[in-house]
Each structure stands twice: as structure tokens, then as C-alpha cells.
């Protein structure tokens, strides 16, 4: 299983070099990444670890490599349009019903600095302008990733959408819709996020394996948002303060 997954990743790595218009630097990065991926695969085989663990190690390895060598500027060179092509990103979408009117839920979300309260992997959101903000998040392997975001649409009580701008570590875009639920059931909050992991197709393959966790993260984030808005706080089973 592990071997075939490694081979598949290698194949997709090969394809990416044909599909994506990249310079020699990213090819080198991808090759090193591929080597790291293979090495991790072997290590995992020896230790008897299975697919999810392997995929995470690979993802971490890719991010670490990029962090160490500073190759994030590769995506800058690619430009937003190339990155945002439909088939090159990962898409996650979750929906939750919150027992408050759409306007109220919208207002809480629109104050972007509220978001780290329920988005566990987001360290901070700093509003930098009328439509711009700076985000810090903790990515795989505990690495901090940062990006600037710009709001593209802001319809009070209905919808907010945004995309990352400039040299984002993980280019991304997203939409949150606030829709009145029937018969006083509150608001259907639907979040969809597209993101473009670094490391070309190999990074994407690794991130795809971790995709379930990310979708789950989003779902848990929305559950926390619901708790904060309905109950006034995030509920906890902790028995002691720390």
C-alpha cells in the first residue's frame, strides 16, 4: 500500500512538471521533495506506520523544506490566476445551522478579528484596511504561515468572500454565505474554501491525504462558532482551569 501510494505521488509529481509552467528552482524543489517523500515512505515502511501518518510526514517534510530554503516566491511568480485554476486547488465546504438571524451571524463574522476565537488553526487576523487583513495560521508540522487577504464581496447579512493576495504561503480563497433557515431555525452558515498547498502536485497529493482532517477542522470550527453565538462561549469538558 505505502509503496503504491509513493509511486502514485511520484507519478503525479512527474505530471506536475509537464502541466505547470515552472522554472528550474521549483523543479529542483519538487525533486528534493520527491526524494524526501520516498525516504519518508521507506522509514514509515520500516516502522510499520500506515498511510495517514505517511501522508502527514510527507506534507510536513514538504513544508519544512520550503520554509528552510525559502522557495515560497515560486507561487508569486505563478500569479493568482494560474494558482486559482479550478483543478489545481483543494476544495472544502461545510455548513452549520446557527439559531440566530443572518444579520447577527454576519456581523460577528464580518468583525474578522473574531475569527481566531473559533478557528483553531488561525493564530490571529489583523484588519489592515477597509477590505484587507493579515492572517497568521499554524500549518502542518507546527509551521506558521501568513498571508494577506482581500475581501472581494461583502453583502451585509448575506455573503462575504475573500482571496489571498501577494506571496501567500498557502494561496487561498473562500466564501461564507448566511442564509435564513426556515421557520425560526436561524441561519444556515455555509463556508467553502479553496486552497493551494505549496510544493506543486506533490504537496497537493500530500495535502489531499490530509484533506479529511482539514475538512473536519472546518466543521469543528463551525461548531465552535455555533457554541459561541448560541451559548455565549465555547463549551468544554475540562475539569480544571488548566
Amino acid at each position, binding site marked *: 500500500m505505502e509503496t503504491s501510494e509513493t509511486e502514485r505521488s511520484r507519478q503525479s509529481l512527474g505530471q506536475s512538471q509537464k502541466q505547470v509552467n515552472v522554472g528550474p528552482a521549483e523543479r529542483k524543489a519538487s525533486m528534493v521533495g520527491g526524494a524526501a517523500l520516498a525516504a519518508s515512505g521507506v522509514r514509515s515502511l520500516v516502522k510499520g506506520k500506515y498511510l495517514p501518518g505517511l501522508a502527514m510526514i510527507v506534507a510536513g517534510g514538504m513544508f519544512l523544506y520550503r520554509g528552510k530554503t525559502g522557495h515560497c516566491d515560486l507561487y508569486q511568480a505563478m500569479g493568482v490566476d494560474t494558482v486559482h485554476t479550478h483543478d489545481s486547488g483543494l476544495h472544502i465546504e461545510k455548513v452549520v445551522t446557527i439559531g440566530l438571524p443572518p444579520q447577527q451571524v454576519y456581523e460577528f463574522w464580518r468583525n474578522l478579528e473574531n475569527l481566531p476565537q473559533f478557528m483553531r488553526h488561525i493564530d490571529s487576523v489583523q484588519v489592515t484596511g477597509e477590505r484587507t487583513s493579515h492572517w497568521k495560521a499554524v500549518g502542518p508540522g507546527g509551521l506558521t504561515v501568513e498571508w494577506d487577504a482581500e475581501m472581494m464581496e461583502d453583502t451585509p447579512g448575506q455573503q462575504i468572500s475573500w482571496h489571498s493576495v501577494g506571496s501567500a504561503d498557502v494561496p487561498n480563497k473562500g466564501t461564507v454565505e448566511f442564509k435564513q433557515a426556515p421557520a425560526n*431555525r436561524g441561519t444556515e452558515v455555509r463556508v467553502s474554501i479553496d486552497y493551494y498547498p505549496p510544493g506543486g502536485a506533490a504537496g497537493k497529493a500530500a495535502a489531499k491525504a490530509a484533506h479529511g482532517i482539514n475538512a*473536519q477542522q472546518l466543521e469543528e470550527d463551525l461548531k465552535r462558532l*455555533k457554541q459561541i453565538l448560541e*451559548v455565549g462561549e465555547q*463549551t468544554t469538558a475540562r475539569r*480544571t*482551569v488548566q
Partner: protein
Amino acid sequence: MRAVCWHGKHDVRVDSVPDPQIVRNGDVIVKVTLTCICGSDLHLYNGYNPAMKKGDILGHEFVGEIVEAGSGVTRFRVGDRVIVPFPISCGACWYCRHELWSLCDNTNPNSWMMENIYGDTGAGIFGYSHLYGGYSGGQAEYVRVPFADVGLEKIPDGMPDEQVVLLTDILPTAYQAADYCNINPGDTVAVWGCGPVGLLAMKCARHLGAERVVGIDRFPDRLKMAHDQCQADTLNYEEADVAKELQNLTGGRGPDSCIDAVGMEAVGTGIEAAYDSIKQTLRLETDRSSALRQLIRACRKGGTLSISGVYAGFIDKMPMGAIFAKGLTMRGGQAHVHKYLPRLVKLVQEQQLDPSFIITHRMNLEDAPQGYRIFNDKEDSCIKIVMKPQPSAAALPAVEAPAAGI
């Protein structure tokens, strides 16, 4: 403090652990004065719940005194004696606002676990695994109780702990089971399982107007209790063809409603029981269901199946054809304790309903490991064990010595 902790299958220990603290403004700390071992705790004891971790504090049936209250608590003050419902409910979500308290959206911090298994989450429950939120339980000296204003009920003066501790879970569970039966004049209600919930369900069914109740079990002492305390007809399923006997008792119609107070560890008889036992052992089936199959078989056309026993996963050989052909209604789930508490407190206070007859064993919290063992093995005619956390033996009622019969 001292607390009963789960360490593995058939391994519970009384450990010293840090005292709980106020974590949220709506919390209170309850000093436990009486707690019980519930039949559903035995599912954890027998290792059927994979979401238990070593050191988890058990117990979801407890009453006590508030010794500390968070700044947001308005309905209670330090010194109040309180009944603590076993489900933890936020009081704000759609489910709580519709009296479906045990289905609360917001109190299970591990809701994703349950969503992955069942498609949605229920309320958090004290001491009932990380699947139900990972809250520490009440078989301890002290408990952190969240959403105190939403959940707790003051104990009226003069009501002893032994009467009210059964209001935390099993009496509301039994009452809901009977309530779900929509009892009409002349009805017969058959109850599978003459344990604490089954016995109280018979009492409640009678209270709600059932003409006749029938208790089904295999332990003669439990059947005797059903007969003597609940005025039930009784059937020993190891000796009788239950469906046939129930038809005999009801002029060929079958019981109008059937209550399952057994759940996923049904014992059953014959080849069907062996099939379930083997499949469950091999983890090919999570729940044994011979009792539930009997309910379906026995129930009259258009009747109701009321499920109060705990099921956790999948069952095999479900006679769906009979449910369809006979047009049965099935209802079940964890009890919405908050909904029933005020009226049940009143019924008990007015002595219209006294649940305390089911208590057979009184012991010290320190003796919990023995308690779990004898309750699980149905030794010593054990029906219900209550435990006092305070280690001073003098505080125990003199009715029965703690070590008697163990």
C-alpha cells in the same frame, strides 16, 4: 479528591485526582452526597465503548450540595442541595428549546466523533466516554457541573438522597419509556429487562394508566421484584416462548406497547443468541439484539416499541419485515431528563411514586470496584448500588452494612 476511574475492561479503581474547578461562569462545583452505578456504566465496564481513556472518571447519577458557583449562576447558591440530570444541556439551541434536552447541539465538545458514527451529535453526558464529550463523572467527591442554571433542580427540603438520586437518570428514563408508549385505557405494556429501569418503567406505565404490565427477565429474584413491587405478570424467557405467552396473556392481540430496558448486551437463548454473541465477540456486530427482536415479534399491530436500553452501533437480523407488516412505531433515545424532572420530583415528593425500592446495596465509594463486579455478575440479587463518597463509615445508613453479601 477520590474518584472512580476507568482503567480498562473489568478494571475500575478509586484514584486520588485533582479537585475540579469552576471553568466557565455558568458552572457550579457539586460536592457529591450520593451516587449510583448505572446499568449503562456496565457497558463501559465490559469494554464496549472504544472512546474510553485510562483515568476517565465514571458516573452520571449523582446528587449533592453546591460548594462553589460561577459568577454567571443565578438560580442557585452555595449550600443548595441539587439533582444533576445526566445529560448536559445548553438551554439555548433548537433542541433544548424544543424539550429535546438530551439531543443538545452544543454540549458535546467531541461532536465530530459522534457525527462520524451516527451522522449527528447528542448532548454531552457526565462520565460516559469521550464519545459523549469526555466530561468527568459523578462517582467522585466533587464534580464540575456546567450550565447549572439550565440543568439543575433543587431538592425539596426533607427529601432523602436515596429518593432523589434516582431522579438523575433511571426514573426519568423509565418515565420517558412509558410516556413514549402513549398508554390508553386497557393497554398492556410488556417490559423486557427487570433491572432498575425496567422495574421503574413498569411502575411508570401503571402510573400512566396501563391496565397490565408484564416483566420479562431470566433472574427469578428480579422477576419476583417485578411481581411484588410493580404488580407485574412475569415471564422467564429461558423457560417460556415469550411472544406466544404474551399473546396468551392478551387474548391473542399482543402487548399494545413494548419497552426495551435491556440494550446492546441482551443475553437471549438458543441459536440466535449464540449467533449474536459470536458476532459481537468478533466485532462483526457491535450490539446483541435478541431482546429487541422479541419486542418486534411480540408487539401488537400498530403498537409502539419504546427503546430505553442503550444501543451503540449495528445489529444484525433486524426483522424489518415485521415492523413494516405490523405498522409498528419505534421511539427511543437518551432521556430528556430536564423535561420530566419537575413533575417527577413532585410525584416522588407526594409519594405517588417511590423509586427507592430498587436500591439493594449501599456502599462506600472506596468499594466501587467490588460494586461494579457484583452488579455486573448479578450477584447477591443486586439491582441498584448507591455509593457515598465520604469515607467515614459512620455516615452510612445503618440499613445494610457496606460489605454485606459481597
